[in-house]
């Protein structure tokens, strides 16, 4: 092939341009640490990166959900714990009140303390977490028990519906503990017929202490104590349920964390550059570019003109 000067010139420029483009590409990959800068760099990879990013975002949101649900459950556990302590105190008082050695005045004083325990239980049942009344079911914006009206009203004001939090795709966990659901309500609505909740038991004890007839004393010693024991059993069952849910949340959290690792790794493998390789590519492309410049400069300078005299 006959080589002309214009041709050599054009070739040199297009080769330099191509080399400069490769240096630029290598440089951008180095500085962004991304292999895919636009979809056409790797269409399949770009799609995979978009889906992996979606998975990561969902995962992060589920982890937030788990954290919130766990806070909800821990608050529930604390409230149930304080109610349990109150019931233990109530049992001591009931045993004391059922003792024949306790006189009528002393019984009335004990009854007053039982009434205080009722108020304290209702306060504990009105516990809120982040502005949400945890025992109100889905009626989360108003306290489930009335603590201000005189004479006291013990009726449950919530709807006791389950509240769900999503902790994974399609995995919903009920986070609230139901307190007024038949057949054996945990706290209940006080002395309504058929209610066996602990408010009913405490109110009965208070009444029996105040009345003070032998039949009342007998009830204190037998039926009331048995009812209290049953309420305590229900409480510990509820707390066991809370513990089990927390364990389930922990498991979900661990699964989410490992899912996050996997998705991050997939995303990184898809769109991140291998640093060592990128650095090597950049430096070799630079070398090639400089070599092309040097050889080009020497080739286009010389012609027969330089040697004719």
């Amino acid at each position, binding site marked *: 092939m006959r*080589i002309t000067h*214009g041709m050599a010139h054009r070739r040199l420029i297009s080769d330099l341009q191509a080399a400069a483009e490769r240096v630029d590409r290598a440089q951008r990959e180095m500085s962004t640490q991304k292999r895919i800068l636009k979809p056409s760099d790797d*269409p399949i990879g770009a799609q995979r990166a978009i889906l992996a990013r*979606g998975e990561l*975002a969902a995962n992060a949101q*589920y982890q937030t959900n788990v954290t919130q649900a766990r806070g909800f459950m821990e608050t529930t556990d604390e409230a149930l714990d304080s109610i349990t302590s109150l019931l233990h105190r109530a049992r001591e008082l009931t045993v004391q009140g059922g003792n024949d050695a306790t006189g009528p005045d002393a019984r009335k004083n004990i009854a007053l303390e039982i009434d205080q325990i009722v108020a304290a239980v209702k306060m504990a049942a009105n516990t809120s977490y982040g502005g949400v009344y945890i025992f109100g079911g889905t009626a*989360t*914006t108003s306290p489930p028990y009335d603590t201000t009206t005189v004479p006291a009203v013990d009726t449950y004001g919530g709807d006791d519906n389950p*509240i769900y939090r999503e902790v994974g795709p399609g995995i919903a966990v009920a986070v609230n503990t139901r307190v007024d659901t038949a057949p054996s309500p945990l706290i209940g609505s006080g002395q309504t017929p058929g209610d066996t909740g602990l408010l009913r038991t405490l109110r009965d004890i208070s009444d029996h202490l105040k009345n003070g007839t032998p039949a009342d004393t007998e009830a204190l010693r037998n039926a009331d104590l048995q009812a209290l024991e049953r309420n305590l059993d229900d409480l510990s069952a509820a707390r066991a349920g809370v513990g089990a849910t927390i364990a389930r949340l922990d498991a979900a959290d661990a699964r989410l964390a490992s899912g996050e690792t996997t998705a991050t790794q997939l995303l990184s493998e898809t769109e991140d550059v291998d640093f060592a390789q990128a650095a090597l590519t950049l430096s070799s492309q630079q070398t090639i570019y400089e070599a092309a410049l040097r050889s080009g400069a020497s080739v286009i300078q010389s012609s027969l*003109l330089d040697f004719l005299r």
Partner: protein
Amino acid sequence: MSGISSFFGLQTSLRGLLAQQAGLNVTAHNIANADTEGYSRQTAELEAVTGLKLASGALAGGGGALLGGGVDVTAYTRARDAFADLQYRAQSSLHGDAETTTSALSAVEESLNEPGTTGISALLQKFWDAWQAVGNQPEDPATKSALAVTARALTDGIRALEGQLTAIGASATSELAAITDASGPVLQDAQAIARLNGEISTAVAAGRQPNELLDQRDKLLDELSAYGQVTITELANGSVQVAFGGVSTPLLVDDTTAWAPTLPATTLFATPTPGGKIGALQTLTQVPGGTIDAYRQQLDAFAGQLVADVNAAHGAPFFAPGGTTAATIAVDPAILAAPTTIRTTSLAGAPAGANDVALGVAQLRAGAADKIYAGFVLRVGNESLDAQRRETSTAATLASASDRRASVSGVSLDEEMANMIRFQRGYQASARTMSTVDEMLDTLINRTGRVGL
């Protein structure tokens, strides 16, 4: 040796001088045009002159002879390979097509901003996250207003992308119109070629070789071939007939432009013509069926799916029910005006803490709409990659076709230098012959008859 003039040698030397001078002139012309685009190098064709006929008996043996009388320039030819031209123009059409497609699809890719944290996919993730946040705290009005704002950012993003696609389509349409209208390059080139056809046929009729005019015409045909496929028929009078872009009416016959200068592109090219910028722009802009149109339809499908799914799960208009395309998608005005009206539950009495609807919407994440969008990005990426590959390969073939042509037609300075020395030496030698003949005549004229003086 009778019958040869004493001055015959002078004449022969003079012809030599003139021929070498002509050669040197052509060399100067070549060097001057070494960098002129479209220039083909020229050569002065020399031919030995049979000058003097010697009658029978002129030679010792009694025979006659023809005596060489020097040299003459018979033609100035240009070095040109018609086949290389054909190859170059075919590649130029393909390259024009690939280049235009690549640049439009790159613009589409840039408007996508994918993969990354600013594209539609990121906005979509934020949208689903906002629904989850509402699900976590359905009683909190702040989560609902955050959702309304996030949703509006998403619809704004989709509409902006649709707007950018429309703008890319519109700019391609106007580029196509600009190429084919009366002041556009196609008709301008056609008119210039027609004018050159006229001048060339006149020169050819007068027996002249119009090298520079031919070069100019070839250059214009090269330019034309980037816009569409060019088919050239050489006519006997030296002019060319040009068929362009697969249209049955030739663009120009002889020295007349056959196309009406006001004909719109859509009438000229009823179906997309393959090759050239015009073909690429048509494939991009055609409605329906063009590339940009197909992208917009896919974006519409995404918007429609999103609106349908979210509204169905929400159980009431969350997105305005009328806006099911990418251009019209919008958050329902009632929701924007009062974000607290976002439905979170389907339970009777709508208890504040119930979140079944919010969770239902949030579960649409990674569903049909997300997949349509990811597929859309994949498609844009694939088609852009394909266009880029075509551009790279056609650029390489075009460069090698151009090299093949330059190899024949290009000016090599080294070669011209060598020629220059050759003609210079030739000139010097002819001049020396002339002075030798002169000295001979001097001897004859001044020394004759002076023996013994």
